[in-house]
């Protein structure tokens, strides 16, 4: 191919990029860039000029209103990848931090918790076995004297944890001191896996997941390939795509190119040992070579050109570091290039094996943290291009150290912006042997390797997410080439046209510089079809939406010429494994036509897709039928879906006591009447239209329970909240309770002073007992002291008003409980003063819980997680149990 006789003028600078700030959201519009003298008509009186951008291009129009599924959804349901809400902290304090901002808080504690819950054996296996006798999870009191000394009740602790969970994010959250003590005591010895190590690994993984959520570069290149039919053969091509629940199955599906592409026969299928990240294909000497990349394995298949021939796997390589790129040589059969995240580039030949071309963990032109590397082939079969986020370099595989040159640099050379990074390079060999496409998050560049560093074309693509996929459809000589760019997260698809050459008469018919032709065009995304689909039941709709919104995972396209009709088929793969297709038809250039259909906006719901064409006997178009079938298959596939998402559930035990929930002894007459009517209506198959005639009179309003001292705390709080000064109310409330507590404390001291003579010495000694025994004593004592709930203590002990236990509590006198918990009564029971507060805390939890019936002895064992056969072991360890105290 000849070099253009003259290039568009441009400045050339060196060094880091000068231009600051992000490009404007419309930076790609309204610019010709430069003009060049040329084009037909030089010999005429006036010179003619051509623009770098803004020349007329080919006109492509969408044939359908939305993309149409090509394949039916596979049987297994898709497991969605983590969403931001899965790993972000959702506390109230962090609400303002939006994902995507650097200040996002990762929910580290929850993930660590997940680990302990999901892998208890790994986390506490042996210690759990050792200790299982000493931890009791039942609600009832421990009776046997022996176990009372060596066993603690964990129920209270578990409830504390639950409560902590329920109050997550509350700014007034008080840490439960009991939990703190416990973790303080156990942190060092309870866990099988060293906590520090585990936390480090988890944190690293979380950061990785989060950065993947922000931008997942492992998908670069896309996992969809189209193997076109042989020239002049039947219009049956092949779609190579991943599938299965874990996207680890590789399918070669024959597809007949009709009005709507249709799958033919069952696909050739290969099960791989990892999630397929990339599928790359190239045709050499009439055979297709398909390279498949997963994180640690890369494989290559050969697909003979004739239709129906089975694909054969050729070779697999394993890498220690995840591979980030796999490209197939368009020049030589069975040659590929592989990059790993450690910065190594290999030339991989099926015959000759791997040849390391480059190894450099550092980035090329300036420092960038990303480990992403890419490589591709160039016009010279022995020269590979290597890319990282900072630019591209070309290396001769025969002498990589000596022979290399810089092809593209993020810098002033290419007029880059600050912060711009290479996202996807692609060799455009099928359109022009020495041209290259480089996309960044802001712009797309076309480079010519004969003129390195200076882009022959640059355009700001204005896509919302960086383009990770691209596909080239070369046009005939003199025609424009089509390039598709695809983004993953936003499913954007953009069609660009460029012309590598136009006839410049001035230069004697030689090639002229590269031009962007026509305007860029947005194609339909997968999720765009949602508005055309019939409305589903809400949960189905949600499932469908989730499915259709899955990030795109690949892109392929083909041009189809059928006599005068030319059309383009664009396939898009989603992470859920769906392949959707849209057809664009080529419109021959015509004088400005009256506004066509494309000017009409399509209102949601009134879609031409589902309108019955008069001609169709079935009453629906082919696309609509295709959708019907797809939707049916999807709902069938997802019926077996195990519930991944748990709806948040609230325990009403915290809100109401059993007594609250208990109704009157029997159903009231009104209820009886109602039930009867209902039953009758059901028998008759009729309906109940009016309840009134039976509701003779409203039940008397319950007496407002206003203590003499003023409105109850709840109504006071609600009133305050209504007025907008809840905060102040809370301040007053806490200070009030502090004052009250101080008063109580003073009172207690006074009493203690009086009683000191008898018990002071023994009381000071008891504090040397272990914490466990403290807990166990408390647990033992618990049920004894339980009484039908009274909430006042709970609310006064500084717990935030999470529940509203006071709402419907029966107006019993607080006296008995108060008496029960007063210092005096505790003291009488022989409880040392240091632990009275703890006890009081503890009892406050139980205050509104009903006394549980004592557990039968047999059920106790079943409540323990660890089989009782281990009991001997744990009893042997009992004497050691008190040791940990030494450390404190």
């Amino acid at each position, binding site marked *: 191919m000849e070099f253009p006789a003259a290039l568009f003028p441009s*400045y050339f600078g060196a060094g880091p990029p000068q231009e600051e*700030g992000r490009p404007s959201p419309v930076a790609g519009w*309204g610019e010709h860039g430069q003009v060049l*003298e040329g084009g037909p008509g030089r010999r005429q009186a006036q010179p003619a000029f051509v623009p770098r951008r803004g020349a007329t291009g080919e006109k492509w129009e969408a044939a359908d209103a939305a993309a149409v599924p090509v394949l039916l959804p596979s049987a297994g349901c898709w497991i969605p990848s983590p969403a931001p809400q899965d790993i972000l902290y959702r506390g109230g304090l962090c609400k303002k931090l939006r994902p995507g901002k650097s200040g996002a808080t990762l929910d580290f504690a929850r993930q660590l918790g997940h680990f302990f819950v999901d892998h208890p054996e790994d986390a506490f296996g042996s210690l759990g076995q050792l200790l299982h006798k000493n931890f009791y999870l039942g609600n009832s009191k421990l009776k046997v004297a022996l176990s009372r000394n060596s066993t603690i009740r964990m129920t209270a602790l578990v409830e504390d944890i639950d409560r902590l969970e329920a109050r997550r994010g509350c700014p007034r959250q008080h840490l439960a001191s009991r939990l703190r003590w416990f973790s303080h005591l156990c942190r060092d010895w309870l866990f099988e896996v060293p906590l520090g190590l585990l936390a480090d690994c988890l944190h690293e993984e979380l950061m990785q997941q989060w950065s993947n959520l922000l931008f997942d570069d492992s998908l670069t290149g896309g996992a969809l390939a189209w193997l076109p039919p042989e020239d002049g053969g039947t219009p049956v091509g092949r779609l190579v795509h991943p599938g299965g629940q874990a996207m680890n199955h590789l399918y070669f599906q024959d597809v007949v190119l009709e009005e709507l592409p249709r799958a033919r026969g069952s696909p050739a299928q290969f099960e791989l040992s990892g999630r397929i990240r990339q599928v790359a294909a190239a045709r050499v000497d009439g055979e297709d070579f398909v390279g498949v990349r997963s994180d640690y394995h890369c494989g290559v298949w050969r697909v003979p050109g004739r239709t129906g021939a089975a694909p054969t796997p050729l070779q697999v390589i394993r890498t220690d570091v995840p591979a980030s790129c796999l490209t197939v040589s368009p020049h*030589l*059969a069975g040659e590929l290039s592989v990059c790993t995240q450690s910065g190594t580039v290999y030339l991989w030949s099926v015959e000759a094996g791997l040849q390391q071309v480059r190894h450099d963990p550092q980035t090329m032109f300036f420092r960038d943290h990303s480990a992403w590397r890419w490589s591709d082939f160039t016009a010279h079969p022995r020269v590979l291009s290597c890319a990282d986020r900072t630019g591209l370099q070309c290396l001769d595989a025969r002498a990589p150290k000596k022979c290399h040159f810089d092809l593209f640099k993020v810098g002033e050379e290419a007029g880059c912006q600050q912060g711009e990074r290479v996202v996807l390079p692609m060799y455009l060999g099928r359109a022009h042997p020495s041209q290259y496409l480089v996309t960044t998050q802001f712009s797309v560049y076309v480079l010519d390797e004969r*003129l*390195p560093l*200076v882009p022959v074309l640059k355009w700001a693509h204005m896509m919302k997410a960086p383009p990770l996929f691209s596909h080239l459809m070369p046009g005939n000589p003199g025609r424009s080439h089509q390039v598709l760019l695809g983004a993953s997260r936003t499913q954007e698809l953009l069609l660009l046209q460029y012309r590598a050459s136009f006839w410049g008469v001035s230069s004697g018919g030689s090639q002229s510089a590269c031009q962007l032709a026509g305007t860029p065009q947005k194609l339909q995304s997968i999720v765009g079809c949602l508005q055309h689909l019939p409305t589903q039941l809400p949960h189905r709709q949600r499932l469908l939406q989730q499915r259709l919104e899955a990030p795109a995972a690949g892109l392929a396209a083909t041009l189809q010429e059928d006599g005068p009709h030319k059309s383009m088929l664009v396939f898009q793969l989603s992470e859920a494994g769906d392949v959707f297709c849209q057809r664009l038809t080529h419109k021959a250039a015509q004088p400005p036509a009256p506004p066509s259909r494309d000017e009409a906006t399509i209102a949601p719901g009134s879609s031409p897709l589902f309108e019955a064409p008069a001609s169709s006997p079935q009453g629906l178009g082919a696309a609509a039928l295709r959708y019907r079938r797809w939707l049916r298959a999807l709902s069938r596939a997802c019926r077996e879906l195990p519930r991944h998402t748990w709806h948040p559930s609230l325990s009403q035990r915290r809100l109401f006591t059993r007594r609250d929930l208990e109704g009157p002894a029997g159903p009231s007459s009104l209820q009886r009447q109602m039930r009867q009517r209902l039953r009758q209506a059901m028998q008759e198959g009729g309906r109940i239209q009016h309840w009134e005639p039976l509701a003779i009179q409203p039940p008397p309003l319950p007496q407002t329970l206003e203590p003499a001292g003023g409105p109850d705390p709840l109504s006071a709080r609600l009133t305050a909240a209504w007025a907008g000064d809840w905060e102040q109310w809370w301040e007053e409330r806490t200070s009030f309770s502090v004052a009250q507590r101080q008063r109580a404390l003073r009172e207690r001291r006074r009493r203690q002073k009086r009683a000191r003579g008898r018990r002071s010495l023994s009381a000071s000694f008891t504090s040397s007992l272990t914490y466990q025994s403290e807990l166990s004593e408390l647990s033992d004592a618990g049920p004894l002291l339980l009484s039908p709930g009274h909430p006042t203590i709970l609310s006064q002990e500084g717990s935030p008003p999470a529940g509203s236990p006071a709402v419907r509590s029966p107006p019993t006198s607080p006296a008995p409980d108060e008496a029960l918990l007063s210092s005096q009564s505790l003291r009488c029971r022989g409880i040392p003063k240091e632990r009275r507060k703890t006890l009081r805390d503890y009892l406050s939890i139980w205050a509104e819980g009903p006394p549980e019936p004592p557990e039968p002895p047999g059920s106790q064992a079943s409540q323990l997680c660890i089989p009782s056969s281990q009991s001997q072991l744990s009893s042997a360890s009992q004497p050691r149990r008190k040791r940990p105290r030494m450390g404190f």
Partner: protein
Amino acid sequence: SSHEHKINFRKSKEACLSYIQDALLQKQWKRAAEFLTCYVESLEKDYSREHIGPSEMIWRIGTEILWHHSQSSMKEFNCFMEQMKTLGVKRYLKVCLEHVFHLLCNGQIDEAYQNLSLAESWRFGEQTAIQDKEMKLIEAYRGLLDYCSWSKQKSILLEHGEDGFSDLAVEQEMHRYFRKAAVNLKEIIKIPGVWDVFVKCYVDLLEFYGDHNEARQVLNEYAYNSKFPANPNAHVYLYQFLKRQGESKKSLISALKILHDIVPSHELMIDFNTMLQKSKKRKKRRLGLEVIFAALDYAGWKENVKAWSCLARQVKQIVTSEKYVDWIKQEWNSRKDWWPAFHFSRYLAKRNWQENKSLSYEKALVAGIVLGKDCKYFKYVSHQGCKAQLKRFRMLKKFVNRHNPVYLRISG
């Protein structure tokens, strides 16, 4: 509150912009235009301190719409551009430049020239670096248009000259254009960049007035200044200039040698090879072989009959003379592991035979020499050629068979 108002305003502004963007990307120009009329309101309440304000957006979007809208006219476009120029001081030159480009592409050369002259005289405070660059470009484009007028006058003058009648006024006019063009063009090509058009015009002017030294200096500077990008065209222009000047073979070869070093796949390599093959010096002929082998390494040359016939000719020459077979051996050594699959596969033999018989002839000759008479490519092509009773191919078969020992030497 005003803060809230600002936020709401910003939100609706963004929403409007996204509608416009959507319409533009779907080529719904009318819809985009309707939204743009709403977006214009954002100019009145421009609270943004963003890098790119709404005025730039309106300029860009409006221009794009007016390019494509079925009912827009040049008059409207010019009117819009004039408004846009006054909207932002910082962007004045950029908008002017784009306006000129549009006029040029639509053949309104005179209007473009007027606009350029106007823009050139524009002054506003201290110029930023970008404005400086834009100003230089404006001057350069005006120089280009002056050059166009100059060459028009020149052709008139030449026509008249043929009639034996010279017009002094036309000649003076022409010189005036020359002076104006030369000043501006000379300026821009001093700055590092790709200035193919400007350099060509400037050199043409200089050559016409016989200032060959200056032309040579300009071209040398453009080709060899390390601050400029490695532009193959710079070397091509120099080579063409030297050729026009009737320079010695030696200087032509040295100019092309440099081009070969930076772009081994340049189309001038065929000329280079021919030139070197004709040379009497052994070293140059050796270089010629290297050049043609290197060119054929590239995918773009795979089916270039000219290049293959150059190689075939030289290989044949070497083999017949039985001297310097080592040259072929050396060149072949670094290629023997991939050229057979790249150039001489059975698939390609079939296809080349079907598509281009003379290409397959040249390639078969090379294949027969470097890979022996048993190689797939040679066997297929010579078989087909003999079957088709083409004399050329029978001779080829004889030649390769006769020189099979050379193959043994090369492969050995």
